């Protein structure tokens, strides 16, 4: 499965698509990136007069790239065409640095296991300077509607 095919299979659309592209994927790891545009709505209120990317959105980037893209790659052709979702089951993430509007972040994810439909990964998110912004484990299961 090519990177382009994975991106087309992603069950997200604007304003909740948090994957710009993937740089690498295999059955154990994935690396991808996303840029937080300065005009995103979240910055109007997080925080008032001091825009900082919310941790939940950093988590979302980690989940969409690190878990969902890898999950799609792992199940390949078994995916339904429509009505697919990905159920987040656990997150355990530490946040180390802030991400400001306009920053590009890179996510690296390594599979811990994919068994019985559940995918668990160690995920790390870096800023453009290569500094680690957040890291932890995320797990989820594919949901068919």
């Amino acid at each position, binding site marked *: 499965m090519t990177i382009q095919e994975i991106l087309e299979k992603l069950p997200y659309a604007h304003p909740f698509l948090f994957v710009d592209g993937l740089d690498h994927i295999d059955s154990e790891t994935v690396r991808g990136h996303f840029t937080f545009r300065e005009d995103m709505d979240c910055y109007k209120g997080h925080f008032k007069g001091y825009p900082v990317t919310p941790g939940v959105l950093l988590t979302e980037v980690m989940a969409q790239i690190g878990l969902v893209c890898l999950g799609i790659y792992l199940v390949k052709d078994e995916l339904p065409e429509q009505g697919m979702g990905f*159920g987040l*089951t*656990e997150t355990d993430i530490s946040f180390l640095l802030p991400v400001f509007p306009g920053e590009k972040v890179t996510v690296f994810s390594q599979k811990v*296991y994919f*068994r*019985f*439909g*559940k995918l668990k990964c160690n995920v790390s998110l870096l800023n453009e300077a290569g500094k680690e912004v957040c890291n932890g484990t995320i*797990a989820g*299961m594919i949901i068919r509607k």
Partner: protein
Amino acid sequence: MDKETLIAQLKEIIKPYAKNEEALANIDENTDFINDLKINSANLVDVILDVEEKFNIVIDNESMERMLNVKSAIEIIEAKLAQG
């Protein structure tokens, strides 16, 4: 390995995932993982992976789907251990 020992070992594995402590304290053959112990289906996968590691066995999809209570878990573990 007798049943009591097996249940005690299962109890240790289940402990981090069980939300109902009273049911965990009173665990027996009839305890249901989801209804009694309130383990969610995602954590049930972790329980099964921990069982595999503890007993050095491999649990297939079919066994996984049956492994919903202590009784069936013991049956499956004993069968896998007997296979060597």
